[in-house]
């Protein structure tokens, strides 16, 4: 009989207690961040400094060394660098990132040697932007071409020209020495 009454009492007391807690939440403000429109400040601004959002490339800064491409375990980065007459080192021909496949592991960023900025605005050539919006209706929308297609074709042509020029130059330079080489061989 005591257990019987105790059971009833326990059940009602604990239910009472739980209901008091849930009721107290009715009197508190929800913590919801009303993305996308009803926001005090945009969500990316609330993210920490090193947040890994979308993978981006600073095409100006990039030296086209392809270290990131090698550092990526899953071939997300598709890039090519070649010599043109635009700048001294390698020029980017094209740089595509497949966001739909990226796993945001930070390995490419760690591999990148090109850095810029002070402590505050520090970023490497390939870096994570504090932005996460990138849905698309088709899979190809998720491939971002940092050098637009026309530009890339243009650059490729330039690179081919430069390569041809260099080849011609090299041929011209090495032409006299050619017989010598053959002789050596």
């Amino acid at each position, binding site marked *: 009989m005591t*257990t019987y009454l105790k059971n009833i009492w326990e059940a009602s007391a604990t*239910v009472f207690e739980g209901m008091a*807690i849930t009721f107290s939440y009715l009197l508190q403000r929800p*913590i919801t961040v009303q993305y996308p429109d009803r926001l005090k400040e945009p969500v990316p601004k609330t993210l920490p400094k090193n*947040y*890994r959002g979308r993978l981006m490339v600073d095409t100006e800064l990039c030296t086209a060394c392809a270290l990131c491409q090698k550092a990526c*375990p899953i071939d997300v980065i598709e890039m090519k660098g070649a010599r043109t007459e635009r700048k001294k080192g390698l020029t980017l021909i094209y740089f595509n990132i497949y966001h739909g496949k990226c796993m*945001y592991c930070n*390995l490419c960023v760690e591999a990148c040697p090109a850095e810029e900025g002070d402590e505050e605005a520090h970023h490497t050539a390939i870096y994570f932007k504090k932005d996460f919006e990138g849905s698309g209706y088709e899979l190809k929308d998720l491939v971002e071409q940092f050098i637009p297609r026309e530009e890339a074709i243009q650059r490729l042509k330039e690179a081919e020209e430069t390569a041809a020029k260099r080849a011609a130059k090299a041929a011209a330079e090495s032409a006299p020495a050619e017989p010598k080489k053959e002789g050596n061989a």
Partner: protein
Amino acid sequence: MTSATREKELKPRVEITQISGTEIEVNMGPHHPSTHGVIRFILFIDGEIVVRAVPDVGYLHRSIEKIAESMPYSFFMPYTDRVDYVAAINCNLGYALAIEAMGGLEVPERATWLRMIGVELNRIMSHLVGVGALPLDLGAFTPFVHALREREHMMDLLEILTGTRMNNNYIRFGGVCQDVDDEFLKKLEKYLDHFVLFLEEYDRLIGTNKIFIERLKNVGIVSGEKALSYSFSGPNLRASGIGLDLRKVDPYCFYNDMKFDVPVGKGIKGTVGDSFDRYIVRIEEMAECEKILRQILSKIKEGPIQSKVPKKLVLPAGEAYHHTESARGELGYHIISDGKSASPYRIKIRTGSFASMTSLAEIFKGMMVADVIAYFASLDIVAPEVDR
């Protein structure tokens, strides 16, 4: 409680064997609201009572171990996140420690502290999913969302620490990938003050609830002996009354400097090793994690976070097994290296959830369908840890 009433409660619910004789075969999963992730049982039920159960695994077999053989050691680190996505840094740590032990790599002191912060935070987050999903499966949605809310706050912290919310890929060989400032440590401390209050409130909301206790006590009893024979580990083993914690028994990182208790199931509401014990052990363990985090905060010092590691890491030939205490029990990495290539010859991952899965077929026998859910939820199994 007198022994007579105890005896009465110990008796399983009536097992009727001759009333209908027809078994219904029902298929639970791989999509079913209560199988977190994709696990399937085939239950043979007679009325409400399970006659036998056949667990079916492999719906999330992603061949992680096989992939490891095809890539350099460092490339495999992001994959370890996905072994147990609820406690990703734990899995990172186990792998990193195994490789460091094998390759004889140094780890700076601050890096170890940071690793421990990540691991303990992650352990709390993982347990929050465990204790949150348990009432969810018993029909109470609100506690689960409250647990999710706390996870959100912790994910904010992890975001500052590691840069991502989940699948952090935080730990590198010989260090961690990024440093934090003092502001983070202050925030963490502030959060811990909040977390203690949350735990207390959560326990009042659901842990003391009569219906909740009645649903869990004396359900799915796994005695200590039996738990060992199933090779349980982690909270599930400790709930069965065996206080085996690898952080105490075989300390790694700086765990031997930490003062913390190992919560053990005492059977406060029913029998040792019942589902309620598994719940309460996780709650207590979260409180212990909070203690550890506070000690870390008082001890952490400035310093480098990454030691020098050769770019192309080739481990000496041989094999090594290194185990750590993950949120779901012993997480062991068995690595075999041929000593020539930069990728492992074989990696085998021992996980806690898979061991827990082995108990299902036997424990489910004679249970009611509702108890099946309660027992399964109390084990806190995560599908990829089973299938990998």
